[in-house]
């Protein structure tokens, strides 16, 4: 790659004016400076995350426990989806480098092809992140439970399937004897939070009461995350004892003993700051990915139109590539510090 940047020019010639001391254009230099400033922003956010985690007194969520679902496949795949997201973003970075390389050969078709592939990868990543958010907000099937002694535990295991609700007392919308089969999980979780399930009888939204037919939960493990009168952080309760304790909480008829998912007031994963940092850092990063995809689309339109070919160089693609690689770089760090450590 012969060019000004690879020539050995003595220092006095470089810094005497009229030439760029870095043998690069104003636009590229400014893009680098912007990337440094943005990197400082993300660096600051990640250090703030580390600081908050360092002195959080409650148990901090563990990455491979919290993020163990795949779309359409359910849970039991620790960190696999986020690994896939990382791979997609790295591959989109690779296609971007290939687009820049094609630009250096004035290969317009190549640039179009590889830039388009980068945009597809970017869209996949943003879509995947949106799914992760929605799953995080929605929570697991078990939620986080408050046990009788005041301690709190997260639950691992296989949630027994809800078969149906058989109405035993009529309400505004349901008749006695009616067998309800749709939207069971949603109504079940709502009722648990409100304390509307007592001894296997659920009170539905319209006031009717129904008997819950549900398969038994299996392989239950309760992991204590907040110390209570008897249980301490880190205790693990397994087997039948876990099933019984969890069943007692669900059927107690007391409100607010189970938390599902994450919202602005409480979350099932751990301290509030965990959710806040998760949404802020991944959201800010996702915003950068999205804006990167938009910019890539605009530049792709320019490539197709032939603007850069007429200009004689594809430096605009290169500058856009710098921004895209920066986005990938930030993700590499977010992935390590948020999900792995």
């Amino acid at each position, binding site marked *: 790659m012969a060019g000004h940047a690879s020539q050995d020019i003595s220092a006095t010639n470089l810094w005497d004016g009229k030439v760029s001391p870095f043998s690069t254009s104003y636009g590229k230099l400014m893009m680098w400076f912007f990337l440094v400033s943005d990197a400082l922003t993300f660096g600051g956010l990640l250090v703030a995350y580390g600081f908050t985690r360092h002195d959080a007194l409650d148990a901090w969520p563990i990455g491979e426990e919290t993020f163990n679902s795949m779309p359409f496949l359910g849970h039991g795949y620790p960190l696999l989806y986020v690994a896939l997201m990382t791979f997609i973003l790295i591959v989109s970075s690779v296609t971007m480098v290939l687009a820049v390389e094609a630009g250096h050969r004035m290969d317009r078709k190549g640039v179009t092809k590889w830039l388009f592939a980068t945009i597809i990868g970017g869209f996949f990543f943003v879509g995947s992140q949106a799914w992760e958010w929605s799953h995080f907000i929605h929570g697991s099937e078990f939620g986080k439970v408050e046990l009788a002694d005041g301690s709190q535990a997260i639950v691992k295991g296989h949630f027994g399937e809800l078969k149906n609700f058989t109405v035993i007392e009529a309400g505004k919308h349901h008749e006695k004897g009616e067998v309800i089969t749709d939207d069971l999980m949603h109504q079940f979780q709502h009722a648990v939070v409100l304390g509307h399930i007592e001894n296997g009888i659920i009170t539905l939204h319209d006031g009717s009461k129904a008997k819950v037919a549900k398969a038994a939960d299996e392989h239950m493990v309760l992991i204590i995350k907040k110390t209570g009168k008897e249980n301490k952080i880190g205790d693990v309760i397994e087997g039948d004892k876990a099933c019984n304790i969890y069943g007692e909480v669900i059927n107690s008829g007391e409100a607010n003993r189970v938390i599902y998912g994450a919202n602005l007031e409480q979350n099932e994963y751990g301290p509030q700051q965990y959710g806040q940092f998760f949404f802020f850092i991944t959201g800010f990063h996702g915003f950068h990915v999205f804006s990167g995809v938009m910019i890539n689309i605009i530049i792709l339109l320019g490539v197709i139109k032939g603007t850069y070919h007429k200009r004689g160089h594809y430096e605009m693609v290169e500058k856009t590539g710098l921004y895209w*690689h920066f986005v990938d770089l930030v993700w590499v*760090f977010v992935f390590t510090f948020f999900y792995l450590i």
Partner: protein
Amino acid sequence: MERDDVIEYSLDAHHSEEEGKVLRKKIWKVTAILTVVTIVEVALGAFIKQGSVIWPFIKWTFVILTLLKAGYIVLSFMHLGDERKALKYIILAPYIVFMLYLIFVAISEGTAVGDALVNYGV
């Protein structure tokens, strides 16, 4: 609008088909390295529990592997390794120095705040 007082450096950045082949091979090689490192990181993260004895060692492995990936992305993908030495230093040196200092400060303050919370209550 043509300007004759600005040097269009990017016109010199072109390379031939043969050079392109060599460069593409290098790109795929770096891709393979990044993929393998990511797979190793995910496998370690998924299968080694956080409470286990080797966990501190694993944590440092993650940090080193991540810095390795970052190095490859910045120097190879972003072509900073091909730029002039001055530009390389201007981008990397202040950032690294500042980050190291920030991390030191955060750990010191975080420890101090944590101790204060434990000793004097929330």
